[in-house]
């Protein structure tokens, strides 16, 4: 998942004055997640600007499911997403590498039951 807005580097008003602060007149950004088929997870497919939640859902349908690619759509305002800090990758994720017994390939099973 790659959130559009990186905390700490929020888009601010443009460098040159344009007579209108971009922040207050721009439609908020939403992240779109689509479940393409029953049984699958919702997948992040991109983002779009919408003024309100209903619009976000409708536009997500128009933009991201044009080719019948969805059974369910989630939209989340980008600034509502909380993400892990990539700098802490080592702390969060490295310990998992040690725990190989969590992986199915660790276990040698007789052929007759290996399809699990």
């Amino acid at each position, binding site marked *: 998942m790659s959130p559009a807005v990186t905390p700490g580097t929020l888009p601010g008003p443009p460098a040159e004055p344009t007579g209108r602060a971009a922040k207050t007149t721009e439609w908020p950004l939403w992240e779109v997640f689509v479940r393409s088929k029953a049984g699958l997870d919702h997948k992040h497919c991109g983002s779009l600007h*919408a003024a309100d939640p209903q*619009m976000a859902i*409708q*536009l997500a349908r*128009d933009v991201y499911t044009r080719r019948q690619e969805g059974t369910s759509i989630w939209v989340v305002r980008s600034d509502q997403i909380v993400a892990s800090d990539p700098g802490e990758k080592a702390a969060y994720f490295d310990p998992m590498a040690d725990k190989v017994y969590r992986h199915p390939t660790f276990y040698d099973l007789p052929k007759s039951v290996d399809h699990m």
Partner: protein
Amino acid sequence: MQSSIEVSRQPAVRYLLRIGDTCLIQAQRLGEWCGHGPVLEEDIAMTNMALDLVGQARAVLTRAGALEAELGGTAHDEDQLAFLRDERDFLNLTIAELPRGDFAVTVLRNFALSTLLKLLWQRLLDSSDAELAAIAGKALKEARYHQQHAGDWVLRLGGGTEESQRRLRAAVDLLWPYLPEAFESDEVDDEAFASGLGPRCADLADAWHAEVAPVLDEAGVAPPAPRAFRSTGKKGVHSEHLGYILAEMQHLQRSHPGGVW
């Protein structure tokens, strides 16, 4: 120059052409927004709608062209009907051919027409014409979505800013006089009703008002007082606008007789 075709004047055919032509001309107007929408996402939404309407037009015109032959006339395909008919033989509601206008005019027209089409497709599910019923099945889903999208925008504009309210009011004043045409039945409707082909125009009026009035109310716009004026597009006598639409739309086919595209 390719000259115009002669079209059957049978009521059943005319009934279908009214529907197909309204979809086609409305699609033609919606397509004008391509690349000029107020925001990219809406450009996509409106083009989507135009595409749906073109699809509905194609299906209905194809059925109408085949019906012509079934009723003893000459068969025509969707393109002959779209590109080689004279203006007087186009039977769309006049409201569809009015200029694109601003975004308020567009969403209000979308709302009015998609509500009408939705109610029509709902009734056509039971049409005695199996093909028309099948077309209605698919079109109904699309019309529902169009109505939802347009209705939401009417509310946004009505409840938005002073300017959007002003423009929405101007849009109602502009468009409303063209709606009575949609709800007054004539002999074409009576024939369709008698044969089970489809409902009379007037039969849809109450349901249409029931769906549209609350939205206008919430948006803070009141329809203008009824007037005597009646548009007559569905009888083939149009406003000054259709001529220009057809001149543009039909130009290529007219100037390349026998052309294959």
